[in-house]
């Protein structure tokens, strides 16, 4: 199965720019099923964590108000080619996604 995370990284000197896209419905919990009229329960990523060579470089906390299939981008110092970037998310019902990539 393909990963639920896509990432693009760019290194310029020792600054890494990370762009990420997660496959996730980000249900608000207030939307109704158009067929049954029943409320669709909230289902959203709560935390998105980035580590570089094991060191935490970003923790993003999301509410339901982050768009469906969330996009998130940031940069950090002290990066070099070959570093291992790990991205993982967890959502409010305990589902998880993870991706590991090498900076280049």
């Amino acid at each position: 199965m393909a990963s639920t995370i896509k990432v693009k990284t760019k290194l310029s000197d020792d600054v890494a720019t990370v762009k990420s896209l997660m496959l996730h419905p980000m249900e608000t919990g207030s939307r109704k099923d158009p067929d049954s009229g029943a409320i669709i329960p909230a289902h959203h990523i709560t935390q998105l964590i980035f580590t570089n060579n094991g060191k935490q470089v970003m923790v993003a906390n999301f509410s339901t108000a982050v768009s469906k299939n969330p996009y998130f981008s940031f940069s950090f110092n002290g990066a070099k080619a070959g570093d291992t970037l790990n991205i993982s998310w967890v959502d409010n019902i305990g589902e998880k996604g993870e991706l590991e990539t090498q900076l280049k």
Partner: protein
Amino acid sequence: MQYTKRALLKGSFALMALAALPARLLAAAWPEKAFSAPEMNAALTGLFGTDVLTASDQITLKAPEIAENGAVVPVSIKTTLPNVESISIVVEKNPRPMVATFEIPPGTLADISSRIKMAETSDVTAVIKTSDGLYSTARQVKVTIGGCGG
């Protein structure tokens, strides 16, 4: 992962099963109080213990003037303030104003981009927590009822 109705159903069962567990096992540091607050002041207090913000012109908040689609509003925040600890996005008129908060450890740049949902026309506020206080800047984003679109 595919989000068919079946997957959603499965999800809701999982939710029931997990409801018995203490919430902190699911996401240790997820600031639930701030995220569930229905008003901006309570959301800020829930996260920072105070709702007093100092306006700063050292924060750049990029957001559209008129959102093409309230469900996907691109927002970028960066700042030249020193010793940044976190960046938060608050949408005052959303049913739950706290949208997201990003913890910035030393070495990580105070420069993030994301896409957010907006229920209606509102101020979008970028809140920067530094080692010596809370700074903010805001700008209005108009959310309109679309025509036919795209």
